[in-house]
């Protein structure tokens, strides 16, 4: 350890450079754009302004999109918990092949996510696989329109981020000693009661970690709503992307980016405060 540290100290510099060029530099550019009125031009002095931010809160349109993004991310998180719990439970408690199955579960991720999102387009379109199947099963008489709606965006996001929930949940379930559940039953709890008292409560750490991994990226997503969504499913990410690549108002786009980042951080902090590890392994005061 110490040998590596002392002899190869210089190895750290490429890493620092990388961090600087690709992370700190763009971040500072965005921060500067967010609080100025014009493009950065060498030689010209900067005029600071908060008007970019003011616009966000003045236009009702943006507020609606913000709330919608929160709603969609929230639903994505809820559904990812619902879908991943049985999977994670099975992997952690009911099979010996969990290591292999997790790799299998991850195989789709070797494919670019844009391609997978376009695949969903084929599935959900009016003469896509889903409609064909439902028609064939005679569940519906004529094709339903799923694509280009909030539903399709939600489906896409759930599909994309559920594995992010499965992994931490699986890890937390794996850590729960079976004897805890047995002890609970031994002391009078039914199987179901024991599950909720012990397994579920202790897996909240996994749900907590998974929520951060699902909610935050979902909140900032733009490719999935752009490909699968319609006019009623524009999300914050789309506005930002639009400002940068189409409208060309980098100042406003940057302000929106900063606002999203601040919102995400605030949500994480608030969420940790309420649902964090402390509250699960709580140390209650006297009563």
């Amino acid at each position, binding site marked *: 350890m110490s040998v590596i540290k002392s002899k190869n100290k210089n190895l750290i510099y490429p890493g620092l450079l990388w961090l600087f060029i690709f992370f700190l530099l763009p971040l500072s550019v965005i921060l500067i754009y967010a609080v100025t009125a014009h493009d950065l031009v060498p030689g010209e002095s900067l005029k600071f302004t908060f008007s970019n931010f003011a616009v966000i809160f003045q236009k009702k349109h943006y507020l609606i999109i913000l709330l919608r993004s929160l709603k969609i991310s929230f639903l994505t998180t809820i559904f990812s918990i619902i879908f991943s719990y049985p999977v994670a439970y099975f992997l952690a408690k009911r099979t010996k092949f969990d290591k292999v199955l997790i790799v299998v579960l991850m195989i789709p991720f070797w494919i670019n996510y844009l391609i997978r999102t376009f695949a969903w387009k084929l599935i959900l379109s009016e003469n896509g696989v889903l409609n064909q199947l439902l028609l064939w099963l005679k569940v519906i008489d004529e094709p339903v329109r799923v694509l280009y709606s909030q539903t399709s965006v939600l489906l896409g996001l759930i599909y994309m981020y559920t594995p992010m929930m499965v992994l931490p949940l699986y890890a937390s379930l794996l850590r729960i000693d079976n*004897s805890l559940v*047995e002890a*609970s039953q*031994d002391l009078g709890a039914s*199987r179901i009661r024991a599950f909720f008292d012990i397994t579920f409560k202790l897996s909240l750490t996994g749900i907590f970690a998974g929520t951060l991994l699902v909610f935050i990226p979902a909140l900032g997503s733009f490719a999935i709503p752009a490909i699968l969504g319609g006019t009623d499913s524009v999300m914050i990410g789309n506005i930002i992307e639009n400002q940068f690549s189409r409208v060309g108002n980098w100042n406003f786009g940057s302000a929106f980016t900063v606002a999203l980042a601040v919102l995400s951080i605030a949500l994480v902090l608030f969420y940790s405060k309420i649902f964090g590890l402390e509250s699960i392994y709580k*140390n*209650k005061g006297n009563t």
Partner: protein
Amino acid sequence: MNYIVCAEDISKSYGSILAVDKVSFTVREGEFFSLLGPSGCGKTTILRILGGFIEQDGGTVSIDGKDMKGIPPNRRDTAMVFQNLALFPHMDVRENIVYGLRKRKFPADRIREELNSILEIVDLKGFETRRISELSGGQQQRVALARSLIVKPKILLLDEPLASLDKKLRVSMQGELKEIQKRIGTTFLYVTHDQGEALTMSDNIAVMNKGVIIQMGTPDSIYNCPWNIFTADFIGAGNFIPVISVEKENHMFVLKTEDRGRIFLRDDFKKDCRDFPGVKKIQGPESSGVKDKTALPVFFIRPEKIKITTKPQRNKNLFNGKVKAIIFEGPDIRLEVVSNTLGKIKIEVKNDGSLPGLKENDNLLFHWDYIDGILLEY
């Protein structure tokens, strides 16, 4: 006296491993009963069958006269203290302890009452709001005990609950456990691989090996009258002297050792041993050319039965030997002696100043009474 637990011919296998093989035993109400055996002999399996966590493949278990077949743990009058304690990490001490009462829907004031009295018993007053991780091993131990005792089980099942504690704490917890058991009168079914623990705490012990109960009885009968070499070897220390022939003269067995030693053993040596199965092979081949050693019994004597002397003794088994090692153990001194006719012999004497200044490689005389020792089979 009522039998609170009746296990009859219970068997359990895991795949091809026969973990428990037709085990039968009974436990009286209020008794401290121990299952004692080496690691992997099936103790935990038996306890888990009694607790209802696994079902036996064959045989019946009845608790308080009721057949337990198909009854889940939450509807059995048993409570288990797990090998790893299994305390709930997300609950504080109080929540852990009252968990069982909550599940039984006790009213809040009853719960408070019961909690107070159990905290008194396990001496954990003032620790109610501690987290489990903030407790010492011994305290965690007592929380686990309290959590199981508070539901007033008919039988408390304890799976090596002291195994993870250091020696000193373990000994003091042994005392406390026994004390608590006496005070509340609950039947304890205690699993351990520590023979000392079983001997000090139990009213009755079942010695197990490889899924079978080898011997059952009180601690002193198990110690003084082991039925076979396994029990004798597993419980305490001892000298095993192979015998090549057994002859009977008057009221005395004359045992010959490989190196032409002669040991006299009174034929009523087992008079203090209840239910001693006897030695079937006692009239084994009398010629000295026996090849199959297991066909012959073994003479067994505890180290503390052997005395050291300076002058020859009449009417005793008397041998001489050379001191190979002197091991000082505080209250006792253990000697390893080599005798020409008996082989290696372990002797244990009290550290009461009576040892006549022995050094290694000194010669000494040792003896034991004709009634001491026992004949064992493999």
